[in-house]
């Protein structure tokens, strides 16, 4: 459909969100990502049965850890949509971007630059 979505969103393609492991999410934040969101199939429609369910559980785990270490669990989100919902995909990208702008930069980034100085 050639719709535009915010350029600050980096997409990592996976065969299924079930492939996302907790460490992938955490490392992204460790390296300075301001937000991470996982986009999977609608619940009940996962091609691999329940990969998206596992992903949701891992996102929740990540959220709990990020809250405890001072990064903030709101920076990671899970969304479900079908592959035909391009406008929704754009909407999610914008939504996440707005949310992260409101939260400000990842405190890890700020801390690292302060230490380098």
């Amino acid at each position, binding site marked *: 459909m050639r719709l535009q979505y915010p350029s600050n969103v980096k997409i990592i393609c996976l065969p299924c969100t079930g492939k996302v*492991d907790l460490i992938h999410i955490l490392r992204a934040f460790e390296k300075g990502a301001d937000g991470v969101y996982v986009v999977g199939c609608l619940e009940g429609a996962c091609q691999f049965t329940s990969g998206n369910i596992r992903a949701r559980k891992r996102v929740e785990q990540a959220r709990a*850890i990020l809250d405890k270490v001072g*990064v903030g669990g709101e920076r990671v989100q899970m969304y479900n949509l079908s592959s035909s919902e391009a406008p929704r995909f754009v909407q999610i990208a914008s939504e996440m971007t707005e949310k992260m702008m409101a939260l400000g930069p990842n405190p890890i980034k700020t801390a690292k630059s302060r230490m380098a100085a």
Partner: protein
Amino acid sequence: MIVAKKKPIEEIIDEIKGYQKILIVGCNECVTVCESGGKKEVAVLASALRMYFLNQGKDVKIDEVTLERQCDHEYLEEIRKMIDQFDAVLSLACGVGVQFLAEKYTRTPIYPGVDTSFMGVTQERGIWTERCQGCGQCILARTAGICPVSRCAKRIFNGPCGGSTKGKCEISREIDCAWQLIIDRLKELGRLDDYEQIQPIKDWSTERAGGPRKVVREDVR
């Protein structure tokens, strides 16, 4: 396997917060199977702790290594060359591993990262349940393969007690009454008459009560 669960991160932070160079050591056996201290859990914990300390404005080095086991000398030797780089070690092995590490590397403080709980089974993914308490004198032959020491909350040898309700223990509806299980199994084996045999008083001297235990095999020494 030995089943352990991850310590809350707040507790771990409290243990290691004074240190600058920390090594997190995982174990490839039991704690990997119960998903509390294997390579994956080491990675997650290391990442989380790095982020925590960065946010605190502290420059803390956190390295990761996972050994095959932490209850054998040979595997613990593998970190001899690197351990002096660190001022503390956080071991995600069971209590056995943490102690053995501490015995071997006496000049490095070793901290536990999991709460070791019991000897048990993977009932299903994500649920581990207790089966054995190491009483030292296995009586499973007399109880149709179900242990009253580890599965009965009162370790009754001639049960069930008056609190058994619809096959569940009086202390929780989520816990099976061990004696109901034993009776059901005896029925399946056609041995319900065995129920009336009085189980004798247990010799607890081979259990924790008798003091720290040792097994020796002279023939292999």
